């Protein structure tokens, strides 16, 4: 598995990806999705394996990096670290920042490695199953993926569905792939090739975050001092090993489902840790179990989210949607054939994720203090710089100024979406799945000779439709408990 990594170039890429991912994770508002989208143009200079290794190492390290800021300044570096703030910061305030970060680092590494094992075993099984899939099955699967966003995604289920439908709608802009008829182009030639993925991602994540930061200029962070990261004590291990394993399992499972990946995984991991804890009253006051539950889950979601991405070409999270775009740009088609024809490519990715988890453990353990200093860069300097990189990165892919304007449009749109409670992640998932949904639907209708009821005669498709209905009904049941549906 590790053989393809024994080259100085790949190790260098891995090292850079891990460090870059940590920096992105530490900076509030940035994260592996934005970072991956920004670095995507640079991957064009690399071979496919190096490019995907770079993106996956950013994903793994970026997810962990969010914990450093969560513990030290009570602001999650990434949304997936939101649950880590709940106990990480209170523990740091008690003068135990090193212990909090040590627990976060160990549980993140265990969660990450656990999820790579899940990926190695389950991705080939899922890929083999995919041989049974025809167009109707892929359509049903994509619909299931989108309905899962409503069911377990963060925020309101209906708003998530609207955002997902909007994402699919964006994918219909341009020439219709079956008939070459223009749709929503309004005479603008540049739009006939469609709206690119990168301008939308950079707009929705980086530019909208820049606008959000412009509303938070008076915010003052209270930083907790950190002397050194400390490995958990024997007592801490005794207290948390079950929580770490449970959250690793939860995170891997949530990661496999197409949803908001680590964000949802960490919230469920945290709440399950509290439910099973002997001392639930300590949660929110600096419980090491709380930190372990959240961190093991969000890092376990990374490997989980790669399972459907590699096996089916269906992303498990926003960042894996960027990785999927990277695969497509480099001419690698995810799916069962990839497992058969290019196993060494996949082993390279698996090995890289494993090494990235070990690397961020080392960097986190010895360098958390240095990474924490990155948050000292003031927003008034940082964000204009990010804007410059965003603009050049977006322009570079198709050398079109229209892409830059599309990026700005989605930046403003993303800001208002987030302001009014619409998550931007379903837009990304909808955009990447849009062509698959429409293509498989239309081809299925051709196969079925216009008889829609034929979908119900295919057992696998029918199973996915039933699961989609359950996924849609789930928020209704949950809302009776939580009263949250709007």
């Amino acid at each position, binding site marked *: 598995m590790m053989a393809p990594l024994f080259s100085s170039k790949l190790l260098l890429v891995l090292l850079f990806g891990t460090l870059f991912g940590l920096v992105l994770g530490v900076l509030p508002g940035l994260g592996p999705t934005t970072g991956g989208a920004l670095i995507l143009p640079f991957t*064009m200079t690399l071979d496919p394996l190096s490019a995907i290794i770079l993106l996956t190492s950013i994903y793994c390290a970026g997810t962990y990096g969010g914990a450093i800021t969560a513990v030290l300044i009570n602001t999650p570096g990434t949304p997936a670290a939101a649950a880590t703030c709940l106990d990480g910061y209170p523990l740091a305030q008690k003068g135990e920042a090193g212990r909090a970060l040590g627990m976060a680092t160990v549980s993140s590494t265990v969660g990450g490695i656990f999820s790579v094992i899940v990926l190695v075993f389950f991705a080939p099984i899922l890929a083999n199953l995919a041989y049974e899939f025809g167009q109707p099955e892929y359509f049903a699967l994509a619909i299931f993926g989108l309905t899962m966003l409503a069911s377990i995604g963060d925020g309101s289920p209906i708003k998530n569905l609207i955002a997902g439908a909007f994402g699919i709608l964006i994918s219909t802009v341009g020439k219709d792939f079956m008939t070459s008829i223009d749709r929503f182009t309004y005479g603008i030639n540049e739009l006939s090739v469609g709206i690119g993925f990168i301008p939308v991602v950079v707009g929705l994540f980086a530019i909208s975050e820049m606008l959000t930061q412009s509303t938070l200029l008076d915010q003052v962070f209270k930083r907790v001092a950190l002397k050194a990261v400390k490995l958990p004590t024997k007592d801490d291990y005794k207290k948390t090993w079950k929580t770490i394993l449970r959250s690793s399992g939860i995170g891997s499972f949530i990661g496999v489902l197409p949803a908001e990946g680590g964000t949802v995984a960490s919230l469920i991991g945290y709440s399950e840790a509290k439910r099973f804890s002997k001392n639930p009253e300590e949660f929110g006051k600096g419980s090491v179990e709380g930190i372990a539950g959240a961190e093991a889950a969000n890092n376990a979601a990374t490997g989980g989210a790669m399972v459907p991405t590699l096996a089916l070409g269906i992303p498990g999270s926003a960042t894996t949607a960027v990785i999927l775009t990277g695969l497509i740009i480099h001419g690698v088609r995810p799916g069962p054939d990839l497992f058969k024809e290019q196993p060494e490519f996949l082993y390279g990715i698996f090995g890289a994720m494993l090494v990235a988890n070990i690397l961020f453990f080392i960097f986190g353990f010895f360098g958390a203090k240095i990474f924490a200093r990155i948050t000292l860069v003031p927003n008034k*300097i940082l964000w204009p710089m990010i804007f410059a990189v965003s603009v050049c990165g977006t*322009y570079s892919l198709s050398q079109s100024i229209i892409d830059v304007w599309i990026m700005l449009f989605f930046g403003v749109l993303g800001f208002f979406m987030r302001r009014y409670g619409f998550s931007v992640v379903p837009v990304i998932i909808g955009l990447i799945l849009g062509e698959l949904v429409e293509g498989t639907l239309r081809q299925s209708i051709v196969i079925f000779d216009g008889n829609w009821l034929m979908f119900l005669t295919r057992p696998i498709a029918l199973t996915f439709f039933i699961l989609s209905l359950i996924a849609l009904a789930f928020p209704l049941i949950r809302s009776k408990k939580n009263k949250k549906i709007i």
Partner: protein
Amino acid sequence: MNNVRDKKRANKSLPFFFRTEFKVFFSIILVSTILLISTFSFDTVPPILNRGIQPATFPKGLLVLIIVLTSIIYYLSFKKPWKKEKNLPKPFFLTILSFVIFIIISKTLDFFLAIAVLSVFVSYYWGERRIFYLLLVSIIFPLVVFIFFEMILGLRFPPGIITNLYYY
């Protein structure tokens, strides 16, 4: 907690067309309806060549779905009003203005100049007054990014009054 309750009450006490949920509902319905109408002007495939559905059918279905779901969230908001958001501060509008200036300059004068102007504008209005840092974000850093993209990716930026000096 009390603050949130007060905000909710404040939102509920406003006339319906000033409420956040109505503004969001109205904006989505308006845009979706315009897009839906525009789908009727898409070309159609002659029946003899048509396999499956017409190119406009799928987007039409999506737009109807968005309209229905938006109506549902608006209906549900009668039972549970949304909280009133804080007014947007001045730097937000200045940042939006800087985007407009960026588009105008990049279209008429120069791409690089547009990045430099936006960077200095944003940095200044976000509170930076030190000349070195203003120069760093507006000239030094964009120049590094520009050269990096140009050399590593072989990217050719759009022509303009400053970019032309570099290329010719």
